[in-house]
């Protein structure tokens, strides 16, 4: 499915957060959105799925304005994992994942065979099958993140939006989550749009990168060519080294902040 943002501007409390953003997200690919804090990355993500409704411009899904699709229909094809979330203390992993079927259920019906299959599948993809009866609150940070991710996967989305999916996780859990996302993208050709902080995750796991700075798209394209030490100094004002790791991937390593000249 083609997701296109056209002339997106967002104002919040008189302050402009995004200014005339235009982008056509590549279907079936993984797009990483990066940029400094407060640049408008999360806001753009929320506009794309209508979590933020107060924007000017137009977001279209296969040519249809998403404002006219209807929330429930939208949730059947697009899922978002936001940062702000909550679950009652006694919620089990399976219960949480089953909420992903909410947009697919009819008003009266119970869990259909398709629902059960989607839930089982989501638990397998996130390697949580053995944890399905555990309470979410008893899980480690990484497992909990996988449980929330599994909820969005149970939605069986064509487009999956992720807001900083690896924040607060240790390095091995970060890679685990990124691998699951890559796996889902490969298996189901799910379009992935994710806000990331780690430049190297964007390089290694992104097919496409969107750099946002000062309310606008600063640069976009293939992360392997776009993400360089040069761009890091321009976007984040940090000096960086690049080197090649054992796998042959180029890695960017931030060294120190460039002092602003007054």
């Amino acid at each position, binding site marked *: 499915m083609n997701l296109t943002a056209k002339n997106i501007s967002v104002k919040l409390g008189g302050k402009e957060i995004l200014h005339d953003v235009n982008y056509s997200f590549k279907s079936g690919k993984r797009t990483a959105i990066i940029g400094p804090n407060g640049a408008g990355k999360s806001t753009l993500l929320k506009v794309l*799925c*209508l*979590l933020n409704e*107060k924007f000017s411009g137009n977001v279209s899904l296969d040519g249809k304005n998403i404002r006219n699709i209807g*929330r*429930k*229909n*939208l*949730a*059947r094809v697009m*899922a*978002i*994992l*936001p940062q*702000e*979330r*909550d*679950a*009652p*203390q*006694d*919620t089990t992993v399976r*219960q949480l994942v089953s*909420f*992903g079927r*909410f*947009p697919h*259920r009819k*008003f009266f019906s119970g869990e259909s065979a398709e629902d059960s299959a989607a839930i089982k599948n989501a638990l397998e993809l996130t390697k949580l099958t053995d944890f399905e009866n555990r309470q979410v609150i008893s899980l480690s940070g990484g497992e909990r993140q996988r449980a929330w991710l599994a909820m*969005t996967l149970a*939605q069986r989305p064509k487009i999956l939006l992720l807001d900083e999916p690896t924040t607060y996780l240790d390095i091995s859990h970060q890679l685990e989550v990124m691998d699951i996302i890559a796996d889902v993208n490969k298996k189901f050709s799910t379009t992935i749009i994710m806000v990331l902080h780690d430049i190297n995750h964007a390089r290694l796991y992104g097919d496409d990168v969107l750099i946002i700075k000062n309310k606008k798209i600063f640069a976009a394209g293939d992360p392997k060519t776009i993400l360089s030490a040069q761009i890091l100094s321009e976007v984040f004002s940090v000096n960086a080294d690049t080197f090649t790791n054992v796998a042959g991937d180029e890695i960017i390593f931030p060294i120190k902040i460039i002092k602003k000249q007054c």
Partner: protein
Amino acid sequence: MIKIFLIGLAAVAGFFLSLMNGSVEITSAQIIGQVPLDETKRQILENIRLPRTIVAMLVGVNLSLSGAILQAVMKNPLADPHIIGISSGAGLFGIFVMMIFGDAGALVTPAAFIGAMLAASLIYLLAWKDGIRPIRVILAGVAVSAFLGAGISALLIFYSDKVHGALLWMVGGLSARSWQHVEILLPYSIAGTLATFLSARHMNVLQLGDEVATGLGLRVNLVRTILTAIAALLAASAVCVVGLLGFVGLIVPHTARLILGSDYKILLPGAAMLGAAVVTISDTFARTIFSPAELPVGILMAMLGAPFFLYLLRCEL
């Protein structure tokens, strides 16, 4: 499953206890018709005990469901029918009518209902700004309740000769509740319970936070508005019949949650039955402990319920 069955059993037990006990004893065999009743007892059972017991059950159901809904909608453990102005609105209008027209029972009920709904709507309007944020509803509720509470105090002072009746009503009681009150309550109980049970899944999703719920396709503002209206109708219908029996709407849903967990599909029927059990059993005690004198059920419920609730809380945490 066993737990919810036990709560159901408690509700049934409450129903029979309430029918059997009072100044005249009636046995269970007489109630189910195995042993014939004499005329006086039949009159007592049919025209006094039965309507009073049904009112108690319906009030318990309405207030508990109202509180359970509001806890989900406001995402706040202190949310109860007081928060959305039900008690202060009903209180001000009910007492106003009592003071002006004397103890005109027939007028107090509709006036209290109108007052409750007006206060709830006012709070909702004040809290609306690009949608409903729970914290704004709660703060607007506190402010409006304080304002209306001042009105209640003023009335009580100006008409101090009629304070006794007003005080009884504010504490909440079930004495002399009859079939006409059942008729007032029943439509709200049936429609409200049905609407509430059908919304169980929406309340479950609402508990995940606004952003997650929206991402799952829930129209959060619309659902909040509708559910708040249902909660307001349920609580207003109860309060206008039995007075400000506020305690049930806060403690019963919490107790049900501690016993049954937070899945609304189980929590809602559990809370409804627990509410019915608590009010019927409390009322039975309230009218038999100091027999022939009668204690307003609100006082007894708060005195027994609060310590029990604290006990449950200690066990859980």
